[in-house]
């Protein structure tokens, strides 16, 4: 018999034939053979007649609809901001993806100018609301979403939250942002 449950497999290894079980995650079918396409261990689900691979390594993750991301604001225009997504959930990406934050997804009534929401360089926590064609649309229309770390536009020092106001602790400049509940934490 070929490889069975618990067996270590590398890409291309034959696990069985389609007459025995259907191909599950981590496997593919070629000319009637079920083969592994990743490095991992075989798991054969005899009840549902399915074979899949418990992976030893996972491929780089992508932002998905609903996932909370952390990114840096790259540029701000009057109605939208471009965000460089660095982190998905708790996982750091090896590269980055670009997301768009539109004025209609801020959630505080009518936003006249995105510069009242965030500025270039700010670190922002946002939720992915659309991923069509690798265009990531983001939203910060929740209390726990928004800017989590910001810099003074006058002197570049970090802004700290004092009495519900963002104030630069070096030059005293007061700025406007849509901040998240956990601003400045972690």
């Amino acid at each position, binding site marked *: 018999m070929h490889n069975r449950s618990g067996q270590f497999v590398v890409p291309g290894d034959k696990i069985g034939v389609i007459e025995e079980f259907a191909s599950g995650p981590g496997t593919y079918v070629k000319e009637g053979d079920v083969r592994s396409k990743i490095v991992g261990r075989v798991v054969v689900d005899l009840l549902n007649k399915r074979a899949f691979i418990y*992976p030893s390594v996972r491929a*780089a993750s992508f932002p998905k609809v609903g996932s909370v991301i952390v990114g840096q604001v790259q540029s701000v225009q009057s109605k939208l901001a471009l965000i460089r997504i660095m982190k998905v959930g708790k996982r750091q990406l090896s590269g980055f993806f670009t997301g768009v934050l539109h004025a209609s997804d801020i959630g505080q009534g009518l936003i006249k100018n995105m510069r009242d929401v965030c500025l270039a360089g700010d670190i922002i926590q946002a939720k992915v609301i659309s991923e069509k064609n*690798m265009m990531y649309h983001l939203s910060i229309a929740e209390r726990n979403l928004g800017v989590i770390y910001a810099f003074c536009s006058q002197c570049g020092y970090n802004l700290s939250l004092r009495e519900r106001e963002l104030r630069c602790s070096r030059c005293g400049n007061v700025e406007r942002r849509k901040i998240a509940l956990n601003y400045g934490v972690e």
Partner: protein
Amino acid sequence: MFSRKLIDESGIRADGRRLDELRPIKLEIGVLSNADGSAYIEQGKSKVIAAVYGPRELHPKHLSLPDRAMLRCRYHMAPFSVEQRKSPAPSRREMELSKVVREALEPSIFLEYYPRTSIDVFIEVLEADGGTRCAGITAASLALADAGIPTRDLVSACAAGKVEGLFVLDLTDAEDKASEADVPLAIMPNLGSITLLQMDGMLTLDEFQSIVELAVKGCKQIHSIQREALKAKYVAVKEVVEE
């Protein structure tokens, strides 16, 4: 022409190998911390490192393909990899090999799983002593597996050729330079398909067929070494975690 023959009367080569013997191969996986996947191969005196990044966002974006990932390869030789310093700028030969390596790896990867992204493969030759394109492909395939990118099969590559009238496996630089013909070959061993086949020199059809058969044999040996390397990396890691 040569002061010393490359193959003696009993069929032993200059480095003590038999005609159908590979050079000693050392494989290591996950050698680079910043790459998504990486592998290092030492095949005799040839030393090659391969790194894989991705799938990641492709820049500039207009180059991205709507239905699949774009595979980009760079084969590069370090200036100190050969006896005479090599200019670090990509040469004509390196650009061609980059394309050839890409085409050798492309059929193994499920590129259609990651539309509009890029998968970048970097192959750096640290020391060259013949067979670096094959060593690069072998290492790159392991780096892809290390990055967790789904592939149809591992790609194993090996060269064979005709030296002093005899068929030999896995040519060194000296043998390659003196050879009548040299055939680098890459295969997907489980699927039995060839992804790279080149030939330099002249062979009759019969000679060509037996050299390809010899190279396939070499590739299959390399495949089992690749398998062992992956097993050594991942099975060992798991046991450490369990303890």
